[in-house]
């Protein structure tokens, strides 16, 4: 007869497992958000651009990949305190068949995206630059009244 002694798990192992589970759930949630809908909208005739966000202690940097756009048509609008809309017209109309797709019909003449900023920012003082087809938006974070702690 074999006896297997079941080891008691430490509280740290239980916490680690819980955190891993939480991380997995959040990744799945993000994945579902990203993959559940198409990256195009035939009713608005626009494509959703690739977008990324980096948060630093001083600012939020949003970048948007905008290939084939007319730079002078790029618009950046703050829809609210924490939602940023970017839109741009393309140099020419793009059709589904150019992607080799024949089971959808429609055309696209621009890009549009909305990005929710997860930390308080000052939308009135955002700055933008467009280099190599990528739009970079710098939004200063709202400063909190800090307390200086003396270092001994």
């Amino acid at each position, binding site marked *: 007869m074999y006896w297997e002694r079941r080891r008691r798990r430490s509280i740290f192992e239980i916490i680690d497992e819980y955190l891993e589970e939480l991380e997995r759930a959040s990744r799945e949630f*993000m994945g579902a958000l990203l993959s559940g809908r198409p990256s195009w909208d035939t009713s608005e005739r626009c494509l959703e651009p690739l977008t990324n966000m980096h948060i630093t202690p001083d600012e939020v940097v949003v970048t948007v990949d905008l290939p084939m756009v007319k730079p002078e048509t790029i618009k950046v609008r703050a829809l609210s305190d924490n939602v940023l809309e970017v839109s741009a017209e393309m140099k020419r109309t793009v059709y589904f068949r150019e992607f080799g797709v024949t089971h959808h019909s429609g055309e696209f003449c621009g890009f549009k995206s909305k990005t929710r900023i997860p930390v308080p920012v000052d939308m009135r003082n955002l700055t933008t630059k467009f280099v190599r087809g990528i739009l970079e938006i710098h939004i200063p974070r709202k400063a909190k009244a800090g307390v200086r702690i003396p270092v001994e």
Partner: protein
Amino acid sequence: MPELVRIVERGSVPPGGVLLAGLPDVGLVGVIATTHIISSLGMEEVAYIDSNLLPPIAVLHDGLPHSPLRIFHKDGILAVLSETAIPASAVQPISQSIVDWCKGKEVKMVVSLGGLPTPNRQNIEEVKVFGAASNDEALKALREGSVEILERGFMVGPYALILRYCAEKGINAIALLAQSFFEYPDPEAAAAVVSKVTEMLNLEVDVTELLKKGEEIRLRARDVMRRTQQELARMSKSQEYDLPLYV
């Protein structure tokens, strides 16, 4: 234990070739570069990779189903290409199977084509190609090709494992990595690795068209890039930015 990955040959694969790897990674550099090489050289599909670790996907070409992960061949040059993001959990067994298959086919060199994520990529006019290798002989090949060696740091993803497994199996392997965007398709970086690999292997592939179509490629690559980004996050790809412990 059931087989996790199988490589099914559909045509004859001559031994002793060179294998190019174009797998989804930062900037989709390898995928864009390898697709361009396959179409420029007129390479044909000789094998495909199947695995129950991959999502249940068929890629339709001219109405017919194909595996998203295929191997092409022409005149001793082989190329493995993935048309969809590889799930982070499948990267290890797939990399292992590709290397085992290369050993069986007596592949004399594996060349992974990819990107090296570079934070200030937007400000770089002329993209530089760096290299890493599986052994001293492969390192020598990089030096002879005037490729700057990645002396220290981290590599994350399929190319990292392909290099390690090739080292283990005694296969010469190099990775040619061009400075690239992390999260956006980068045809310019792809053109840089195509130029370097074709120069090293004495192949004739023109990159003018690739550069000319750059913006259209970026437009078409959005969805594959989006899914690749998710997998790169799952495999902690940003660790490539980390500074190694150096005492």
